[in-house]
């Protein structure tokens, strides 16, 4: 609430919850919206953000809308900090809204040591420029290299699409990477251009993502590669469009204690004969978590992926379905589940996997958890004639228990003792302790 002040008198501001819910019948007219602390943010961007405020008809609505506007400014990255102060205006029922804001640091530079999704230590350096054109755009460049010699360089540009309660944006990125693929003992060079658009609906519960990819890959076989892998070596170009819808009510994506995730996506590559890779991919991910007795909670997840070649050639190795690794079927080597030839994995055309976890928080309660799990999955060959039969016959099951550590919603680390209940003779599975790091775990 506020007091109108005359000249020379100090203004005192009070928290809005004093008035909240009590002023529905106090009419309000917004006379002006002012911003304090703006240097580079453009006026039209700010206008897009706060235009709706002028439509507030009573004080209650005004207070709520100001709060939403301030929060939105921070969430889309236009401002680092924003606080709304409502002041009375001289006219009858008139109010002036002042936003005290702090713009994001225009330039950030960082270096960090971390862990790649394959469990190798890596070091990355990045530079970012915020609000490049005054409308919340972010331009950033980063370079990462791992101890095993993989390295990648990425330049990306992203821009939020501003507007009242609008959470959408466009992004583009250009990157170049070099990595060793342990599951087929070969090296992969990739040069890629990705253009993306994302949008949130239904109170940010529904997310839509659309992406256009153009990726030039070079697969180079090594002395240890199987001939079946060599046959796919060389340059290929993948030009594809993909879209993904996800419904997410989980309380914390990195390790949910309650909520549901349902994600469905498709990718079409090689449309109109552009590029070498031509396929259609369908993917479904479902996760659910719920509390049980005492402090325990149960989480289950399901994943299904089907890739079908659309062209005359069989699916290229790099476009196939792989399973295995410390973030899905724990205990099996990364991407090692699929058709196996000479201790290499050449993937498959369809895969399903599921896992059930029982968690109990340890100390500290939101970072360290003990968990036990059962994970199962299988991949049917690219040439499979009876998918259901092949998926059922080649099922692998692993069980285990261990600890999970979640670091600030950024990274999840796991240390598990894993045992295989069911696997095929040629699988790359080792019983014992396994360490996993990453963001998306099944």
């Amino acid at each position, binding site marked *: 609430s506020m007091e109108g002040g005359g000249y020379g008198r100090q203004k005192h501001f009070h928290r809005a919850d004093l008035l909240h819910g009590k002023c529905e019948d106090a009419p309000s007219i917004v006379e002006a919206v002012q911003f304090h602390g703006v240097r580079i943010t453009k006026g039209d961007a700010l206008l897009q953000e706060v235009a709706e405020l002028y439509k507030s008809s009573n004080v209650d609505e005004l207070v709520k809308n100001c709060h939403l506007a301030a929060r939105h400014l921070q969430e889309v990255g236009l401002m680092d900090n924003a606080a709304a102060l409502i002041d009375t205006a001289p006219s009858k029922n008139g109010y002036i809204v002042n936003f005290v804001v702090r713009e994001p640091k225009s330039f950030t530079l960082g270096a960090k040591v971390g862990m790649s999704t394959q469990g190798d230590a890596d070091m990355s350096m990045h530079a970012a420029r915020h609000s490049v054109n005054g409308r919340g755009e972010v331009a950033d460049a980063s370079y990462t290299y791992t101890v095993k010699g993989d390295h990648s360089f990425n330049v990306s540009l992203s821009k939020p699409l501003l507007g009242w309660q609008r959470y959408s944006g466009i992004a583009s990125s250009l990157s170049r990477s070099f990595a060793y693929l342990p599951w087929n003992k070969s090296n992969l060079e990739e040069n890629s251009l990705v253009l993306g658009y994302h949008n949130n609906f239904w109170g940010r519960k529904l997310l839509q993502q659309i992406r256009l990819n153009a990726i030039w890959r070079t697969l180079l076989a090594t002395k240890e590669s199987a001939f079946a892998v060599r046959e796919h*070596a060389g340059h290929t170009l993948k030009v594809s469009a993909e879209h993904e819808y996800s419904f997410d009510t989980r309380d914390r994506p990195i390790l949910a204690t309650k909520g549901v995730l349902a994600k469905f996506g498709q990718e079409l590559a090689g449309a109109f004969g552009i590029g070498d890779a031509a396929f259609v991919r369908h993917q479904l991910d479902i996760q659910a978590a719920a509390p049980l007795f005492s402090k325990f909670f149960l989480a289950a997840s399901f994943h299904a992926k089907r890739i079908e070649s659309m062209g005359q050639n069989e699916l290229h190795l790099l476009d196939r379905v792989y399973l295995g690794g410390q973030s899905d079927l724990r205990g099996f080597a990364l991407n090692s589940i699929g058709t196996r030839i000479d201790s290499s994995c050449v993937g498959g055309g369809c895969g399903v996997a599921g896992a059930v976890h029982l968690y109990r928080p340890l100390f500290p309660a939101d970072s360290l958890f003990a968990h036990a799990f059962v994970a199962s999955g299988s991949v049917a060959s690219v040439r499979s004639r009876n998918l259901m039969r092949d998926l059922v016959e080649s099922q692998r099951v692993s069980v285990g228990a261990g600890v999970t550590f979640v670091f600030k919603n950024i990274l999840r680390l796991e240390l598990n003792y894993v045992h295989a209940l069911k696997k095929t003779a040629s699988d790359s599975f080792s019983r014992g302790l396994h360490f996993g790091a990453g963001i998306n775990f099944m």
Partner: protein
Amino acid sequence: MAAGDSVLIGLVEEALSMHVDSEWHEAKLYTPFFKDQAQLYEFADCLAVQTFLRMAQLPVQTKQRPNTEFISPTGEMPVLQMGSILIPGFTGIVDLVRKKDAGLSSHLTDVQKADMAAQMAVIDNILRRVEMYIVWLHDETYSRVTSTRFGSVYKWPLSSVLPVLKRREMREKMNTIDWANKTLVDVMEAADKAFRCLSCHLGTQDYLMGSRVTEADALLFGHLFAILTTRLPTMELSNALRKYPNLVEYAERVENEYFKK
């Protein structure tokens, strides 16, 4: 005793030849696409290997692939695959066959073998390099023939980008052997010297090393046939070869002998 000996020798020979046959099982030869992709020297080497295997009466199944360069462990083409063995290049394949005692030069003396190696070196070190120079470093040939052929197995934009990158790589390679700075005239002189040397050595004989075919004949035939039958913007190499009629007649004769019967 003598009769028993010959039976024994016969049995041993049979066992050895069976050994070779059972080891020469389902051999596959990977080559680039002859019609649209293979460059002059690649076609020459692939044909040389095919001719050699015909001369040695070893059956092989030729498979044309767009990415043979990457299937090969060293980038050399063609690539012979037999079971888990993968051998790239003419020299490697000839060595493999010699190890299985199915080579064509076992009747030569050591001096003749050295001589044959010298003739093959002329083809390897001079003739093939001339071919590579014309294909990659001669501007007109590169822009009208080479770049289209190299990019023919890719879609745009790779079909435009990759030939440029490959040309840069070949120029580096030629630079390390000091051929990048030669002019076409220098290169043609070297070709002429090579042809003269080979023509001289062939003389009026049936084959390079006398009256029996050897590996050197396969290699020579491969390159001569490729030069005579490939149409390039510059016909200088083909014309230089036609100045030595015994080589042209030799190529026709080997073709009739091994490919038309």
